[in-house]
């Protein structure tokens, strides 16, 4: 479904702040596969996700989604294939718009927007049912401004928006990192439910080793802009946090993960 070939990205090239964020990354994700991405700060995890989402274009390499070469497509055109949830709960929704308006915007992702109604009556009913599945009581607050919701509620809503139209690829960028542990667990549960329901091809960044091990079919570890570990199948199922730390230490030549990663 996703085919990333040898992509490179350098920020601030030619200055003292030059940073080679992606250094020849290649990864292939099969249809319906879900992958957890881990790595220390500055390893290139978010850069990889942003490269796929098209926040900027890569310096080298190609990216294709479902057989379509998207390497040079702008972000808003790639959005036709991609559902995204960001780390910052503020980023995925429009705070000054209503819950139902946000969902209606997401329902039109990748479609031509013309002079049809921004939201229809039939849609409202559909959204009410979908919101009910979140079990957050949002189905009774459909005309409330999203800005009034808590961080966890916003992330759950963003998840719903990202999957409202089945995306070819779901990108989750540490989407529970800004939440308290209890809310984070709940949002992770919602993620699992939605991903399993639609068999979504997913790329999820996490700082949480446990989440990375429990979640998904495959685990990728990044260091210094490269993929240093790629564990799948039975091997992944047997993995423990201790294994992972040990293997990371070997793969990265003795470097340690950030404190945050070790503590979690």
């Amino acid at each position: 479904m996703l085919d990333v070939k040898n992509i490179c990205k350098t920020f601030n090239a030619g200055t003292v702040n030059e940073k080679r964020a992606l250094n020849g990354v290649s990864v292939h994700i099969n249809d319906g596969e879900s992958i957890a991405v881990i790595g220390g700060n500055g390893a290139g995890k978010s850069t990889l996700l942003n490269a796929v989402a098209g926040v900027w274009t890569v310096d080298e390499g190609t990216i294709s989604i479902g057989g379509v070469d998207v390497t040079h497509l702008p972000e808003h055109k790639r959005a036709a294939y991609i559902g995204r949830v960001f780390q910052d709960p503020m980023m995925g929704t429009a705070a000054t718009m209503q819950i139902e308006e946000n969902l209606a915007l997401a329902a039109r992702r990748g479609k031509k927007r013309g002079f049809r109604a921004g939201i229809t009556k039939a849609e409202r009913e559909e959204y009410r049912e979908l919101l009910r599945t979140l079990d957050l009581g949002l189905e009774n607050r459909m005309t409330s401004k999203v800005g009034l919701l808590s961080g966890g509620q916003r992330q759950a809503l963003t998840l719903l928006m990202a999957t409202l139209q089945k995306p070819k690829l779901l990108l989750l960028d540490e989407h529970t990192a800004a939440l308290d542990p209890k809310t984070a667990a709940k949002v992770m549960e919602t993620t699992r439910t939605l991903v399993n329901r639609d068999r979504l091809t997913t790329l999820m960044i996490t700082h949480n080793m446990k989440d990375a091990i429990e979640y998904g079919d495959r685990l990728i570890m990044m260091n210094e802009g490269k993929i240093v570990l790629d564990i799948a199948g039975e091997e992944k199922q047997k993995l423990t946090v201790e294994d992972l730390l040990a293997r990371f230490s070997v793969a990265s030549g003795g470097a340690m993960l950030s404190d945050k990663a070790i503590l979690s």
Partner: protein
Amino acid sequence: MDGLLAFINSLPGAFGQGFAWGIMAIGVYITYRILDIADLTVDGSLATGGAVCAVCITMGWNPWLALLMAVVAGLLAGLITGLLHTACGIPAILAGILTQLALYSINLRIMAIGSESTTKATLALSVDKQNLILSSRYVRELGLNNPLIVLVIAVIVVIAVLYWFFGREIGCSLRATGANVNMARAQGINTNFSKVLALVISNGLVALSGALLAQYQGSATVDMGRGAIVIGLAAVIIGEVLFSKVFLNFALKLLSAVIGAIIYYIVITLVLRLGLEATDLKLLTAVVVAIFLAIPHIKNQYFGKRGGKHHA
């Protein structure tokens, strides 16, 4: 007593100005409130609207057609600012200033069309000689020629069309762009297109306002738009301060900008009666807008903190 009578007598004129500027305020609302950009093009495009309308009428065109041409000129002005901002990456404020500056020269040329001189700073219209839709001369008359009728209808039509538009898919994508540009792009919205479209619509409305003003006042001048952005902001802010708690519907929010403009002109009429010179008005307007813009900030900065300490 005489002063009061004179003030009441001048109220219809304040309403006329207020309605005409109200349409301009709606244009400012679209960029400033919906798109979150302060667009300074409007100082130029208001005069462009007036100039185009006045020239068309001087050449004997139908006054309705003159209004339409003025709107088209405004749309183009907005398009230029939009392209400078999105395609050329110039910050929105600066893009607006550049277009505004360029329009000053263009407006002088526009007003000279059909005359022997190459540039012209004013163009007079007379309801005696020309076919005008509205004129301030009849603002106190009870009859169909009262300009307030045309102005009220214009305001209603503008609000109705915008209410419809912003409920459409394309209108919603424009609102989303202003609310959260990252989210809008992630939902597949071409945010550059949204920004250009908002600037185009806004300046079209501002030019319509300029065209109505030119007919209403009986003249177009090259500096009729000087400080227009501040008057527009004043109208938007006065409307919000007074009505934001009661007017929740989008159409009513647009209407509150128009009412803000009317109140602004009533206050202006009052202070002129109290002996201020017309040339002092810009200072007064700037002070009023600065105070209203500063209030939320000062509230948070000083009273917010103190409140927090009490709670702790």
